[in-house]
């Protein structure tokens, strides 16, 4: 797999589960601040990147397994995770490997969310993003079209990606998509055939 294909693999197999992972970490491990969650997610992506994707049969399970290892390491170094939470971390083992259909947000819903997020960008930032992403113009052509420097185009795109990435990585606000807390709920179940 070449590098672009590896990014696509991450996009298809890991990114969809980041929102629920962040939600779970925030709710269950209250000792974690936002920065800790960001650190964990970044460390997890770094480890997954180092893996041989051909051996990963379930991206979601692999993501949780990776985070569990990381949490255990943090705990051993008694950095951020109180020791009594380790039992709960172990329960992450019980996550069902098969994501239920409700956890797959439909492409149309994703598109609707994206529209809302893009609409909230500052006007010039939004226009630059649309020209680059929706109309496929190069940085240079966007710059020419809008009378901006390429550096400014880059700044706008950076801001757009950072904001959109952060927004898409959190769970949709209530009412948009409904699903339960899979890991926490399943922790008490004896099997995972009850979806």
């Amino acid at each position, binding site marked *: *797999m070449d590098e*672009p*294909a590896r*990014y*696509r*693999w*991450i*996009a*298809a*197999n*890991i*990114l969809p589960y*980041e929102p629920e992972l962040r939600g779970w970490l925030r709710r269950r491990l209250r000792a974690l601040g936002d920065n800790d969650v*960001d*650190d964990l*997610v*970044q*460390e*997890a*992506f*770094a*480890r*997954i*990147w180092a893996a041989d*994707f*051909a*051996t*990963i*049969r*379930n991206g979601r*399970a*692999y993501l949780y*397994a990776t985070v569990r290892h990381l949490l255990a390491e943090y705990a051993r170094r008694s950095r951020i995770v109180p020791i009594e939470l380790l039992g709960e971390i172990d329960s992450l083992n019980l996550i069902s490997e098969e994501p239920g*259909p409700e956890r*797959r947000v*439909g*492409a*149309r819903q*994703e*598109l609707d969310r*994206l529209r809302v997020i893009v609409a909230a960008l500052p006007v010039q930032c939004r226009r630059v993003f649309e020209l680059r*992403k*929706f*109309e*496929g*113009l*190069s*940085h240079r*052509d966007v710059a020419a079209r809008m009378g901006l420097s390429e550096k400014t185009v*880059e700044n706008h*795109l*950076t*801001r757009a*990606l*950072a904001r*959109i*990435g*952060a927004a*898409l*990585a959190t769970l949709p606000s209530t009412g948009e998509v409904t699903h339960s807390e899979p890991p926490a709920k399943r922790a008490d179940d004896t099997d995972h055939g009850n979806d």
Partner: protein
Amino acid sequence: METISELAARWAVRADAGALGPDEERELETWLAADSRHRGAYVRARAQWVDLDRLAALQGSASSAAESSRVAQPVAEEPAPEPAAARAGVGARPEARRATLPRRQLLVAGIAAMGVLGGGLSWLILREAQERYTSGIGEVRRIAIEDGSTLLLNTASEVTVRLTTQQRDIRLVRGEALFEVAHDKSRPFIVHANDAAVRAVGTAFAVRLDAAQVDVTVTEGVVEVGDSKTLSGLGPTTAPASRPDVKRVAAHEHAVIARSRAPDVEPIAPAKADRQLAWREGMVSFDGESLQTAVAEINRHNRRQIVIDDPTLAAMPIVGVFRAIDLEGFSAAAAAALKARAIPDGDVIRLQPGPSKTLN
């Protein structure tokens, strides 16, 4: 000061544009090596940027559909189909996309000029002209047609549209399309595929054309299926359902029309209909179909192809929901589930029996 995520976003944007010189490459490598979180944030940002292309492709097809509803596009002006897979790639063919806009403007100007010179005649010619729409491999394209109906083209599909005052004639030349038909009692909406036809007034249904048969799945309302000639010949006021060679297909029903045979109509569970139409969301979905069937389906959406090297393996069942253009993901999942190996081999991925590799 910028956070790690913001720095990563900047590097991702620059790398994606192919704008990194040798010095910057080194700078990036140094930054990535400095902290494992940098690497993770960068990988995440690159993946998000790639993922946005998938959404942009959907967005793009929606907005180009809006444009084509305003301007009827004669055949020659139809821009070359652009597979979503190609768009999703880094540096996705900006030239082709850029060419679309001026060409459309030219076309508008052309139509305006014709209007001045030819008056009603050119309008008539335009109205009678047949429009052709195609989708590339891996592309799902939404097209708004003038009467208010919508076509959603699945991968590698082609339709022609011809609107007259009496009839709305659509031909599915190849592939599959979902039709959301604007209600218009005076002009039946007829979809032809091979010798078969589906006739509707206002409803939603999907038609898929394969070598051996035509499949019709109705999601809303009622349609009539039958022979192309029979259905075209009937005026809007006749009640075709009273004819023995024409069958009604209602919502949650599915009809199969093999060549020169009467349509075979049977109920279809809503969950199954949804699965069959998962391509609307850029997905394919299987519930126990053989690997061979699943691979044929996923291959429709991709230029690279999967080849199954073993007949026993080909007959094994597959369950799951996959992104239609994620050939690698599908092969890896199938290999893991069926204790097989997925081996990249040039333009194909081979699935062979073999020891499965496990998680971690």
